[in-house]
């Protein structure tokens, strides 16, 4: 196709955007791993204010065989359905070279071994780092007007389906778009303005000191245990976003994509443009 700008080198990401992007990538990694460490201390989620076993939607546990106490099975119960998850969840590596009854394995938690105190230290520190990185990104994006290109607009909505059809190879060409395609805009908008703010807010809501200052916030979320359930669910959604992001980074010219997030410069491909 004769796209007049194909091959053109454009300055796409400001230094603030690049720095904050990598900073929150690191923060997210630490927050997920230390968060799983914290989850392990009470490996269940309740859809209620206070703890209530009758409203438990997730339990990650273990059961010892009656005949042979050495034989332990990891069990994960989601919405009443039980799955055997030995090795992956419930009965897993203890982070010290052995096996233990713990929800998430040592390789996925920070620190590796069971250590709630240090897990909390990491989590509360990098919670600030994530918040700082997002604020820097949004402020810089607003000042430089880069966010205009990224935020989903009503006029993008009719283009969402054609774009999905293009990804599914059911359509030859993507709908015309600027710097980001409509599906990208939808994903970035939801992550930046819904998922990330909500994961910060739900995390804050489960702290007693914050609850004392902003009781309506915790109450709105359904209470402390519910806030914990939302916080965990948002983590799952963000991991889902991250995996999709990785697939698309690598499927759409990994070197061009990654370089643009390091140097700022991006080389436009077919169908690609600049602007909103």
């Amino acid at each position, binding site marked *: 196709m004769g796209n007049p700008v194909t091959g053109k080198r454009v300055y796409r990401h400001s230094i603030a955007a690049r720095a904050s992007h990598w900073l929150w990538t690191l923060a997210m990694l630490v927050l997920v791993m230390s968060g799983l460490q914290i989850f392990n201390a009470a490996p269940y989620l309740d859809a209620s204010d206070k703890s209530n076993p009758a409203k438990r939607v997730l339990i990650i546990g273990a059961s010892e065989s009656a005949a042979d106490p050495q034989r332990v099975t990891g069990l994960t119960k989601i919405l009443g359905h039980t799955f055997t998850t030995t090795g992956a969840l419930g009965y897993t590596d203890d982070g010290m070279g052995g096996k233990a009854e713990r929800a998430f394995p040592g390789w996925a938690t920070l620190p*590796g071994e069971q250590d709630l105190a240090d897990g909390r230290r990491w989590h509360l520190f990098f919670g600030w780092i994530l918040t700082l990185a997002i604020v820097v990104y949004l402020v810089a994006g607003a000042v430089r007007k880069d966010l205009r290109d990224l935020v989903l607009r009503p006029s993008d909505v009719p283009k969402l389906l054609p774009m999905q059809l293009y990804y599914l190879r059911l359509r030859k060409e993507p709908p015309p778009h600027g710097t980001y395609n409509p599906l990208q805009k939808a994903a970035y908008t939801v992550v930046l303005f819904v998922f990330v703010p909500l994961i910060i807010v739900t995390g804050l809501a489960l702290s007693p000191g914050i609850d004392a200052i*902003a009781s309506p916030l915790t109450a709105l979320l359904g209470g402390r245990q519910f806030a914990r359930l939302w916080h965990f669910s948002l983590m799952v959604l963000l991991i889902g976003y991250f995996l999709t992001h990785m697939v698309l980074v690598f499927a759409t010219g990994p070197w061009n994509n990654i370089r643009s997030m*390091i140097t700022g410069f991006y080389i436009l491909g077919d169908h690609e443009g600049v602007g909103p």
Partner: protein
Amino acid sequence: MKRRLFIASSLGVLGLTGCTTSFKDALTQGPFRNVLTSVENLNHAVIGTRGSARLYTEADVDRDFRTNGLDTPSDSTYAGLAKDGWSRYKLVVDGLADHPQALSLAALRALPLQTQITRHDCVEGWSAIGKWRGVRLADVLAMARPKAGARYAIFSCFDRDEQGTYYYESLDLTQAAHPQTLLALDLNDAPLDNDHGAPVRLRIPTQLGYKSAKWVSRIELASTFAGAGGGKGGYWEDQGYEWYAGI
């Protein structure tokens, strides 16, 4: 050059995910640990002791209130006092005080009693709701008349762990003066039982549960908590948990 940077950063991320134990050893001791833990002061400054814990109704109360942590004290002093129905128990309030006190349960119950139905938030992540009744810590401390240099109240407890280390806790006088900070005597309309901290326990609904020390025997007013226990202000604090437990 850029490629080398990319490879280096990839290796960094791999190192982070791959060997968390050695990573932890490298980063959770020394200067980085100080950076990591300093955020506690920021959280304390931002959240502080503002606000009041939400009050619940009778219908929300957990009749079988969960217990956690150390067991009922095996201490012989404690067992002796319990056997006599706490008639010989005296809550000592001393240290930097102009009028040190030794208060019997009857003397405590003669003070104005506050009832609060509040949620107990454990650092592990679970929570339970109890109906607490007791005296405001501020009232008890006022009786002892803290001296000008008093900044902390340090709580000694009857229980100790397998190594013989006694449980203790500490609060600054701002948290101690919070109107919902109680010396609880009753839980769910009955005097505290031995598992729940009889005869007197702290009740601090605006901080995590480990601050609400059970089996309190003595309150010492002091200018610093550095001399108590392991020096970090509490049994769990000595094991790495935050002294400011509002988050």
